[in-house]
């Protein structure tokens, strides 16, 4: 575009007064215009600063809002964390409840079922929460994607705008240049009475320029807004990433919870099976003194020993019982015999009674006879009194006296017999009483005897045990007295060391086991586990030390043997062999230790500096190596030549 011809300024010396005045006037005009421009620019800059101040205030407000938002978010985050903690605490409480329930497993099965239902509900809740969280994540992801797209669009728009702004700025610069040119032209033309058309054009141009300037400002505003939006979106993005991380953490915790729930279920099943076993075995009914299965086993062993001892005593008692029953039979036989004897006695008593009765009858008869005789005697006396003859009286008195004597004898005899009978009666009664008492108390007595026998047997066994113990003690004491030999061992011996290590390990494992059992409810790992692992590590270090020792020993042996081999080869074959890298072997003859042959087994080549020592080297090499392919023969020849050369 060609606007106006360039004004060519002439030198001041060549100008006249009018021209100079004009020049001054133009310069004054320029100055005033520049001043005006300066003021305009100053005003515009003031406006710009004002607008920037406004923008700054706006952005500050936005920043404050954003800070408030972040604070709210932070608080929300803390709340969420607290909620999370409370959520974490919830299963622990459940577990505690479960542990308490475990103790009342049998009696409170219904409650356990309720708790299980609750757990299921919680699991459902958890799953629903999980679903919610996943949905929220998905929605957030979608939002992020949307916002990303918007961001991208905005960025592209901003880029476009930036490009447009640049383009417009360039245009503005061009226009400004043009304006400055036009102004200069105008000033020059004002003197030349420029046409109004050009002025109109300039006004239009000025208007368009102003419009473009406004448009550029609007674009700048837009740009700033978009930048703030971008900032917001970035902040949102950061917040989303934080939320994402938190979500991931929650997800992992949720997974952990699921795994723990599964573990808990499996443990519950195991517990139920163990409880079943316990109820099957009836361990619950046992005493509380059995704290662990070892106690039961030891008690069982004790009981087995006691059982064997009781079996022995039972067999002994059985034998004794048999003996006693035999004795009882014998006693029964004796009793029967005694009963028979008693019967005999009774019969004899009856006979004696009969005899007594007869004797009584005889007595009565004799008494009656006596009466009759007395009557007869009285009759005779009456007759005698009538007759009164002295000889007859003497005879009669004699007869009477004889009769009297006879009666007296008979009465005495009777008395004696009566006494005898009464005595025998007493004896029989006494005997009968005794036998009856014996019969009644016999069984009682037998029982008493059995009991006494048992008591005695117990006492006997106890005394026997006591005697055995005492005998053992005596034996021990005698052996102690006889013990003149001591068996000694070094305290620091391999066996005791091994025992000590094993004992230590056992103690650590027991502690670890007890700690783990006690802390099964909590996630914390007990210190004893660390101690045990430390101990294992020590043992492994020892093993490594011994393995290293072994390898060094083997290496030593290997080196020794290889040296022996090399020495043997050197002394027998006359070449010292040195194995170099890459399959090369250096042969040094014992006759020429300064020279050597290097055989490359990989490339199948031979190098040597012996060709300068042995004059016929080439011919020997040609003959033995190339023609015949006999390298050992060649080496032998070389050795022979070197020996010949070494000879004085």
């Amino acid at each position, binding site marked *: 575009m060609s606007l106006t011809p360039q004004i060519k300024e002439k030198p001041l010396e060549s100008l006249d007064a009018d021209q100079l005045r004009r020049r001054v006037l133009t310069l004054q005009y320029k100055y005033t215009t520049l001043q005006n421009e300066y003021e305009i620019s100053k005003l515009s800059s003031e406006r710009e600063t004002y607008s920037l101040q406004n923008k700054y205030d706006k952005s500050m407000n936005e920043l404050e809002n954003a800070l408030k938002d972040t604070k709210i978010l932070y608080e929300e985050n803390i709340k969420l964390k607290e909620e999370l903690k409370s959520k974490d605490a919830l299963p622990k409480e459940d577990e505690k409840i479960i542990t308490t329930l475990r103790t009342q497993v049998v009696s409170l099965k219904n409650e356990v079922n309720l708790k299980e239902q609750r757990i299921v509900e919680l699991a459902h809740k958890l799953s629903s929460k999980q679903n919610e969280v996943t949905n929220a994540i998905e929605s957030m992801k979608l939002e992020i994607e949307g916002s990303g797209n918007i961001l991208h669009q905005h960025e592209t728009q901003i880029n476009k705008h930036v490009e447009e702004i640049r383009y417009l700025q360039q245009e503005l610069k061009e226009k400004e240049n043009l304006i400055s040119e036009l102004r200069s032209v105008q000033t020059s033309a004002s003197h030349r009475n420029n046409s109004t058309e050009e002025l109109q054009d300039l006004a239009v141009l000025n208007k368009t320029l102003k419009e473009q300037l406004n448009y550029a400002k609007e674009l700048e505003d837009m740009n700033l807004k978009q930048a703030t939006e971008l900032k917001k979106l970035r902040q949102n993005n950061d917040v989303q990433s934080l939320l994402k991380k938190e979500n991931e953490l929650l997800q992992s915790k949720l997974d952990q919870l699921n795994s723990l729930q599964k573990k808990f279920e499996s443990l519950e099943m195991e517990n139920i099976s163990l409880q079943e076993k316990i109820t099957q075995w009836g361990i619950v009914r046992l005493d509380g003194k059995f704290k662990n299965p070892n106690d039961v086993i030891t008690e069982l062993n004790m009981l087995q020993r006691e059982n064997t001892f009781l079996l022995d005593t039972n067999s002994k008692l059985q034998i004794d019982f048999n003996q006693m029953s035999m004795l009882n039979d014998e006693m029964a036989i004796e009793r029967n015999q005694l009963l028979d004897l008693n019967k005999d006695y009774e019969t004899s008593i009856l006979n004696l009674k009969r005899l007594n009765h007869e004797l009584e009858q005889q007595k009565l008869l004799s008494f009656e006879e006596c009466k009759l005789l007395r009557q007869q005697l009285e009759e005779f006396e009456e007759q005698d009194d009538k007759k009164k003859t002295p000889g007859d009286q003497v005879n009669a008195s004699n007869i009477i006296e004889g009769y009297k004597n006879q009666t007296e004898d008979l009465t005495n005899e009777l008395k004696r017999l009566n006494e005898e009978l009464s005595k025998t009666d007493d004896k029989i009664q006494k005997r009968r009483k005794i036998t009856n008492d014996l019969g009644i108390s016999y069984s009682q007595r037998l029982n008493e005897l059995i009991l006494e026998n048992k008591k005695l047997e117990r006492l006997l066994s106890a005394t026997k045990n006591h005697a055995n113990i005492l005998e053992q003690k005596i034996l021990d004491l005698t052996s102690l007295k006889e013990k003149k030999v001591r*068996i000694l061992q070094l305290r620091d011996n391999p066996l005791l060391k091994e025992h000590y290590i094993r004992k230590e390990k056992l103690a650590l494992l027991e502690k670890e086991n007890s700690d783990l059992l006690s802390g099964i409810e909590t996630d914390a790992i007990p210190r004893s586990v660390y101690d045990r692992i430390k101990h294992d590590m020590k043992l492994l270090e020892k093993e490594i030390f011994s393995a290293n020792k072994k390898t060094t020993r083997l290496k030593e042996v290997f080196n020794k043997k290889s040296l022996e081999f090399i020495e043997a080869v050197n002394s027998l074959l006359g070449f010292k062999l040195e194995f170099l890298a890459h399959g090369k072997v250096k042969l040094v003859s014992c006759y020429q230790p300064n020279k050597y042959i290097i055989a490359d087994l990989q490339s199948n080549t031979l190098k040597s500096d012996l060709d300068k020592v042995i004059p016929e080297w080439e011919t020997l090499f040609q003959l033995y190596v190339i023609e015949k392919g006999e390298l050992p023969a060649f080496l032998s020849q070389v050795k022979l030549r070197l020996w010949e050369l070494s000879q004085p």
Partner: protein
Amino acid sequence: MDLISLKGSTRIVTEFFEYSINSILYQRAVYPAEDFATVKKYDLSLLKTQDTELKQYIREILRQVHRWLLGGKCHQLVLCIVDKDDGETIERWKFNVDSHSNKNDTDDDMNIPLEETQKEIRAVLRQITASVTFLPELKNEGNYTFNVLAYTDSNANVPLEWTDSDSKEIAKGESVQFKSFGTSAYSVGAEVTYKF
């Protein structure tokens, strides 16, 4: 008997103990074979440990046994091979030491030449080496340890490093008697008892 010959005899016996313990530990694979190195002794190639710890342990035992032998307080030395897992004694190598001074023998009868003693020791050590052929195989190699017991008089001086032990007998074990050897002061017999 003069002190010099007694000391010489005791040294021979303790030396024999050292080589027999080493041979047993090697033959029964209580310690790995690479721990042993061949040495010439009694015109035999015998194996001796190179493990410093084990060497120190054997040396400490034999030093004290030597003292007890000189004092006539030690009558028996026992090497027990024990299972590490259950502490059960698998083999029990017993060396009886009978002092001639206890038997009231005359000095002339007991003057045994050194060559004769060495010949007898060779025979015993050969028997110990050959015992691998009839002894049961120790299956868990590396799972065995050993202990040395010294049978002394009750009035013997016992250093603090030593303590009392049980006899570690093998119940219902099979026993095999080896040859014996004699010096001018002692006669030493060997026997192995193993779990059959």
